[in-house]
């Protein structure tokens, strides 16, 4: 590979400041340093990274990093911190420098990881089956039954292909002598593989030349192996398997990753309410009926999976799922109950279990672990508390790890007493000094490297050929020096992990998908909840645009205040559209203040205002993350998170913001027109848009006609219908259509057919009605009496187009019918399509 290692202190050019003092600090830390050898020389596999940093201007590095940060924001990559009192999603934290690992080292580690996954899988099959490990005294039953993850309901599980553990993650750390150790096994629903993938995508934007010149192993094959393996093991009797990703929902801290995985693997993302059990099998509720589900890649914890057998207070579960899983009619990846082998107490028994079950020596060991239930272990713990970390057998939810070295002698005695009282509940683990890796220390004008503690989460998936290891992983880096644990929950960041292929000359053959197994393509109907969310995405997008247009128009008309009718009508509309509340005791919409209009446009606490509508759009959009295009998603994020929305915006910036909002929303409409398949899901989105637009339009027309009737009654002047109605043209964005057909004053007489009857104007009343009717027809909804009013209005419009408009009173009546019709339609859709995801309750 690369030539000779260069002495840190002798690095040339800008690199001299880059590494100044790094080696000395690194040696003083008494840790393994990923970058420098013990003599202070840099490890050769880091050279290309150092070269790039050394030869690039700090300003350019800064701009690359800014690109990465922008990407994270635009993508909406988030991670929820439980400790955050507001429960806010926090942008994903990625450290700019990768962790580079040489290929030969990785090969050895991979073997150990695969063996460990194989072992844990066998242990699970044994514990939930014949229990020979317990009967033969290899593992004490106390360790298993006392573990937080033990699930009696999983006993007797017939896992398809005898695979309990489809996806496995190990939290690794490296001791000062360079050895890798497992500090924790993740077996229930290991998280982070998706973030590792995302990290790679971000890095390929920030450092494309490094990734193209260094022999960094790609991650994609790992995911396709996973996809194929899930399909292979699906209990589908030779038919095409249907696989879903089960998420607890957008409130979960790694929801972003769930949607990413679903999108990347090509499986629908579902919540518990989307699934149901019938005839001993699991089914997906779609708008075209129930569809059999063969495999569930779950990101939901055991206890919440089945309210009938497990936690009855869980609203997230699927009643009867545990039974299906036990019978093997559905593949759970991972099997219910697989969390039991996460127990730290088990780790000390793994070498013996490995010999017993596999006839092999355990290659990749855990850090020293002592289950205090054993007398000998207890006395070791008593004597060596300083070097130990005390954990609960039930996991971190019971209590946070206690470092013996932190305790004074009194606290130490107290802890020992506590452990002695119920030793079975405690595990002691050797405290290992974490290795450290370089991070960029950004001082003005100069780049410098600093060292931070790291841990590595590595991933394995079950395949037909055994466990396959992701060549990479999620490196976690602590935010401060000398940290003893690394945790994203505690504010750490992550790093991309670059595993170098063993030898550059040994180019991996570009093989086509080997064997005859094509990736599974299964048509999945639109899940009911997705249909509902698409419908609301349509409505909220349209509603936000309507609000933005209405407010922009009202504010600017008010600035001129020339056209009284317009201003009064607009205020009335803002009120009847429900976005402005009249001051207490006031009945005249003309009393609405400019402040309240501004607040409606920008203040996040204005009820039903633009900001809140956008928030709703964002919420619905978030849960559709896997269904909408990448760019659509980014554009929506930008709009929803626009910094203009604040409580104290003034008039000028408000108008600027409204312009931006209208343009942004128009582009969202563009995405839904051009970047989505015209499938059933899209029809719901489209229905949402049409219905919302119909509602605003019917309300606006009602006000126009009302005004006309009023002025007519007041002075019965025949030309009153000539009042200019430019505001209506502006609101409906129809001035283009109008000017192309007419010259002169925008009077009711002149414009009414364009706004009402013109079937080619996408903002006309007729266009909305026909659009709704068409969408319903395509969906095959027999709407019945629910939309009789709508149908009649459609017929009327056609008649009027031929025979001329009726009098104002009749018109007004039609508009009133229409605005009621929209809510009837809403209900129809809800009972027909959305309510199938109605929540189940425990009794």
């Amino acid at each position, binding site marked *: 590979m690369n030539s000779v290692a260069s002495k840190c202190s002798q690095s040339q050019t800008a690199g001299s400041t880059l590494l100044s003092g790094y080696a000395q600090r690194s040696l003083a830390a008494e840790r393994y340093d990923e970058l420098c050898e013990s003599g202070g020389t840099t490890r050769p596999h880091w050279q290309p990274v150092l070269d790039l940093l050394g030869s690039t201007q700090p300003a350019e590095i800064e701009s690359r990093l800014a690109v990465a940060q922008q990407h994270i924001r635009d993508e909406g990559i988030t991670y929820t911190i439980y400790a955050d009192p507001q429960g806010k999603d926090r942008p994903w934290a990625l450290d700019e420098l990768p962790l580079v690992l040489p290929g030969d080292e990785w090969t050895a580690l991979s073997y150990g990881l695969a063996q460990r996954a194989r072992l844990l899988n066998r242990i699970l099959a044994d514990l939930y089956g014949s229990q020979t490990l317990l009967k033969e005294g290899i593992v*004490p039953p106390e360790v298993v039954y*006392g573990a937080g993850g033990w699930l*009696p309901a999983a006993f007797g599980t017939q896992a398809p292909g005898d695979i309990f553990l489809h996806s496995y993650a190990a939290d690794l750390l490296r001791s000062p002598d360079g050895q890798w150790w497992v500090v924790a096994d993740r077996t229930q629903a290991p998280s982070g593989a998706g973030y590792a993938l995302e990290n790679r995508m971000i890095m390929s934007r920030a450092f494309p030349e490094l990734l193209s010149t260094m022999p960094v192993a790609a991650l994609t094959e790992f995911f396709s192996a996973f996809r194929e393996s899930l399909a292979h093991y699906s209990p589908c009797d030779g038919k095409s398997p249907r696989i879903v990703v089960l998420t607890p929902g957008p409130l979960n801290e790694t929801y972003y990753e769930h949607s990413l995985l679903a999108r990347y693997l090509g499986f629908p993302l579902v919540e518990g309410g989307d699934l149901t059990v019938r005839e001993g099998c699991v089914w997906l509720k779609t708008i075209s009926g129930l569809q059999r589900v063969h495999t569930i890649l779950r990101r939901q914890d055991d206890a919440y999976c089945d*309210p009938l057998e497990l936690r009855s207070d869980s609203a997230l579960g699927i009643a009867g799922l545990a*039974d299906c899983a036990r019978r093997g009619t559905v593949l759970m990846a991972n099997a219910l109950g697989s969390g039991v082998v996460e127990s730290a107490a088990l780790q000390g028994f793994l070498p013996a279990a490995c010999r017993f079950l596999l006839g092999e020596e355990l290659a990749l060991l855990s850090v020293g672990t002592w289950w205090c239930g054993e007398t000998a272990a207890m006395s070791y713990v008593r004597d060596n508390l300083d070097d130990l970390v005390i954990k609960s057998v039930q996991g971190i939810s019971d209590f946070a790890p206690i470092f013996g070295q932190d305790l004074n002698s009194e606290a130490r005695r107290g802890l020992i007493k506590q452990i002695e009282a119920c030793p079975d509940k405690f595990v002691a683990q050797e405290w290992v000094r974490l290795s450290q890796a370089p991070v960029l220390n950004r001082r003005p004008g100069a780049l410098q490297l600093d060292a931070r503690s790291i841990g590595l989460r590595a991933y394995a998936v079950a395949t037909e050929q055994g466990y396959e290891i992701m060549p990479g992983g999620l490196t976690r880096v602590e935010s401060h020096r000398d940290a003893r644990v690394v945790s994203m929950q505690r504010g750490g960041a992550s790093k991309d992990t670059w595993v170098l292929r063993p030898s550059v000359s040994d180019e991996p053959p570009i093989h086509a998908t080997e064997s005859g197994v094509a990736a599974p393509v299964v048509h999945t109907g639109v899940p009911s909840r997705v249909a509902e969310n698409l419908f609301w995405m349509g409505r909220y997008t349209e509603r936000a645009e309507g609000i933005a247009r209405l407010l922009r128009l009202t504010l600017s008309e008010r600035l001129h205040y020339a056209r009284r009718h317009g201003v009064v009508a607009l205020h009335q509309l803002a009120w009847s559209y429900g976005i402005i509340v009249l001051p207490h005791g006031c009945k005249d919409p003309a009393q609405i203040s400019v402040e309240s209009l501004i607040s409606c446009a920008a203040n996040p606490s204005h009820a039903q205002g633009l900001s809140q509508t956008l928030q709703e759009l964002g919420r619905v959009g978030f849960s559709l993350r896997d269904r909408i295009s990448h760019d659509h998603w980014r554009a929506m994020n930008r709009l929803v998170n626009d910094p203009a929305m604040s409580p104290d915006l003034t008039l000028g910036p408000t108008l600027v913001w409204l312009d931006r909002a209208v343009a942004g929303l128009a582009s969202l409409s563009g995405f839904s027109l051009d970047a989505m398949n015209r499938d059933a899901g899209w029809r719901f989105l489209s229905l949402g848009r049409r219905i919302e637009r119909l509602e605003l339009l019917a309300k606006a027309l009602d006000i126009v006609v009302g005004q006309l009737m009023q002025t007519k009654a007041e002075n019965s002047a025949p030309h009153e219908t000539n009042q200019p109605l430019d505001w209506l043209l502006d609101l409906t964005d129809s001035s283009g259509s109008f000017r192309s057909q007419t010259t002169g004053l925008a009077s009711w007489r002149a414009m009414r057919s364009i706004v009402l009857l013109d079937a080619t104007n996408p903002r006309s009343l007729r266009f909305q009605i026909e659009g709704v009717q068409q969408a319903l027809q395509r969906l095959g909804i027999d709407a019945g009496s629910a939309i009789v009013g709508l149908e009649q209005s459609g017929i009327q419009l056609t008649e009027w187009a031929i025979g001329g408009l009726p009098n104002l009173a009749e018109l007004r009546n039609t508009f009133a019918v229409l605005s009621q019709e929209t809510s009837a339609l809403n209900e129809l859709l809800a009972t027909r399509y959305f309510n199938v995801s109605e929540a189940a309750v425990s*009794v």
Partner: protein
Amino acid sequence: MANDVKPGKRYRVIHDTEYCYAYSVSNARHRAHLIPSSYQHQKVDSATLTINQPLAESNQGVDFFGNAYRDFAITSPHRLLLVQARMDVFVQHPAWPTTSPLWNGKSLARRSFDPADTQGTKFAMACATYLVDSPMIPSLPEAKQWALKHLGEGKPLHQQLLLMTQAMQEEFVFDATATTVGTPLPEVFKNKRGVCQDFAQLMIASLRSIGIPARYVSGYILTHPAPGKPRLIGADATHAWVEAWCPGHGWLGLDPTNGKAVSDEFVTLAIGRDYGDVIPLRGVVVGGGEHSLEVSVTMIPVV
């Protein structure tokens, strides 16, 4: 061990559960632990479960704890669900130990884990599940203090266990209004009021806290009508008690609600770590709105 096994008694138990919903339930899925199993002192002659609605699905099985269960699903709309369990059971008086070791304050849990120690392994296989915390019975420091106070004297363990059972009855007040199914254990302990389920779980918490395996038993107890009065149908109730591990003897049935050892007037329905493992009837329904739940139990001696 048992030296004088008394002749047994026969019972018929009728256990009806009725759910009444405000609105129609469109879909329901239930699990019943209403079929008794046979044990050393109990033989089941017959057991049936009748459900007043057409069943879309029905399954039965045996759970990890050895209890029979029945799962059923109803997909036709209904506002009333009536589940009727009938069982004919033969019960013998459980043998009461004549001797047992003195309890020395030490946990019965093993401390040596030599695979060659088959005796210890066998014990652990039977008892470990009932030594550790369970979902509804977490470890409680106050329960431990209470247990030590009542199990400290120098008598054989089985006698001490009975004394503890009596103390439970004396110190705690039966009060059906004091708790619900979901009342946390520490609260019961503080208020010293509750029902059989609370007392059983409390005693289990106490026993486990000092290292004595203990399990939860759901079943029925014979009530005696006042002299000269007829037995009232449906006036009985489901009952819950405790089985504690007594070395040299095995599981020992103790009823903290009544402060006595289990006799031939007890019918066992199911055994688990806590109430959550043996809920007689649970379900998940779609629709229904508010609902009322009526349970009526009759236990009749059959001559």
